[in-house]
């Protein structure tokens, strides 16, 4: 596997691009590994990478039902930020942003992380208070954030609807300059290649059909390509967590599967040089422009439990209305594609990274809307949990038993209704 560099690009340019190796191997499964990670999405691949890099555990397999980048890693709107209200969440996502900042160098793979800044608009004095609190929480956690007034937002993005008759009058915004976007499928490929170079086996087209246990401890997985024994098994299959954990006898979880749609328009000339998001009662919207020029945007869930990776029409209308309410200049832009991914919506709107009632079986789930931006930190801390069989300081709060202990982390204060988080 060759190292990517300016020189390799020049060399292959002169050789007609004939000398590139495949980016990762396609190995046959071994009979036994130290760790098996179920799920070859961004989180699973990142976990395998950090197991090898940070903990020296290289006898690892990532077992994936489909292909890399075919699930939620390739279905999100690519936004990366760390502006949360709950201190433990904002600290976790801040660690992720810090990892993102050096990820392309670390992986030797260009994930096109672009810190173009994110504006979270607010439309009422009450919403301004909420965002001011968010800024204060972030500053107290050592994370840079600014509260902008209406004139500052107008100077930054002049083509929003600032008119008298705007459905959502813009009073100002919270700005995180270090937030941005990344190329999502490159994240899966980059982690896969980097993990593979450290010796991790990536097994695609290998659905897990059972989780093997003896005496209350996990001993491996049953797959369509045979039995694979393992000392430890980590499950990172957001969207299908309930389905996979049921194979280990864990029938009930504080998670519902919901679908979230994303949209991309035809390519346009440069129109938006930052990420914009807003939320108001009945409206939820976020948008950025990809490097190819497409406007990438999304909104709310479809609001009913679903495992179908396709969106339904009422939310298409809803999101289009949200777009027009804030950026009327999009009115004649044609939609190119829309699709859906399956979210693990947890009961408090926060992820679960935890040991489970089955010994040496670990779960990484419940990411709600936040999975993509969490990818590097999720892998980092899940690898630490698996390697040391105990949560680190930043992960302990995200345990599965927080619900029965009464320590939920409810970012929006919505209570145990997954679709509302």
């Amino acid at each position, binding site marked *: 596997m060759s190292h990517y560099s300016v020189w390799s690009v020049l060399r292959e340019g002169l050789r007609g691009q004939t000398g590139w190796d495949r980016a990762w191997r396609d190995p046959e499964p071994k009979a036994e590994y130290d760790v098996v990670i179920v799920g070859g999405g961004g989180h699973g691949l990142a976990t395998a990478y950090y197991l090898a890099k940070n903990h020296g555990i290289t006898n690892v397999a990532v077992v994936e039902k489909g292909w890399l980048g075919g699930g939620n890693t390739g279905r999100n709107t690519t936004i990366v930020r760390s502006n949360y209200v709950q201190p433990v969440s904002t600290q976790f996502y801040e660690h992720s942003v810090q990892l993102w900042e050096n990820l392309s160098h670390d992986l030797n793979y260009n994930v096109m992380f672009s810190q173009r800044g994110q504006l979270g608009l607010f439309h009422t004095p009450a919403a301004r208070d909420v965002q001011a609190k968010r800024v204060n929480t972030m500053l107290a956690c050592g994370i840079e954030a600014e509260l902008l007034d209406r004139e500052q937002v107008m100077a930054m993005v002049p083509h929003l609807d600032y008119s008298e008759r705007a459905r959502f009058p813009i009073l100002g915004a919270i700005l995180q300059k270090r937030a941005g976007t990344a190329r999502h499928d490159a994240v899966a490929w980059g982690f896969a290649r980097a993990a593979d170079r450290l010796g991790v086996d990536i097994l695609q087209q290998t659905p897990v059909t059972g989780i093997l246990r003896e005496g209350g401890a996990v001993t491996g997985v049953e797959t369509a390509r045979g039995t694979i024994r393992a000392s430890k098994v980590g499950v990172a299959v957001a969207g*299908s967590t*309930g*389905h996979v954990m*049921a194979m280990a006898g864990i*029938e*009930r*979880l*504080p*998670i*519902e*599967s919901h679908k979230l749609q994303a949209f991309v328009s035809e390519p346009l000339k440069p129109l938006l040089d930052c990420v914009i998001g807003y939320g108001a009662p009945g409206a939820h919207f976020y948008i950025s422009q990809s490097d190819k020029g497409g406007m990438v945007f999304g909104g709310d869930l479809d*609001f*009913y*439990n*679903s*495992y*179908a990776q396709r969106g*339904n*029409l*009422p939310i298409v209308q809803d999101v289009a209305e949200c777009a027009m309410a804030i950026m009327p200049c999009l009115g004649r832009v044609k939609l190119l594609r829309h699709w859906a991914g399956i979210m693990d919506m947890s*009961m408090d709107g926060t992820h679960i990274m935890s040991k489970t009632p089955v010994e040496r079986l670990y779960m990484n789930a419940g990411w709600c809307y936040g999975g993509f931006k969490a990818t590097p930190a999720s892998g980092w801390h899940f690898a630490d949990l698996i390697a040391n069989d105990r949560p680190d300081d930043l992960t302990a709060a995200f345990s599965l038993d927080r*619900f*029965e202990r009464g320590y939920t982390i409810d970012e929006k204060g919505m209570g*145990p*209704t*997954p*679709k509302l988080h």
Partner: protein
Amino acid sequence: MIRITCPFCGERDHSEFSYGGDATVDYPALDASAEEWTAAVYGRTNPRGPHKEYWHHLNGCRAWLVVERDTLTHEIGTVEFAHPGLRAAMGDGA
């Protein structure tokens, strides 16, 4: 668009309805143990396949319904009133 046949109003687009979540959850007695309440409030089987769930015909007759829907195909099975009194009053064929 999913179409749900409301026993009162007939076949309607699901945009007339509001989703109310898992209808198989049995809430325990008020003095039940914390474990039972935790399981009822937070524990979901979240099936991939047939799922009994509440839908509220919010922009219609406003009745709460129990709908059987496949979470993978969105196919609708049985639909009945959630309230047992209403179910009895309207009869099985309603």
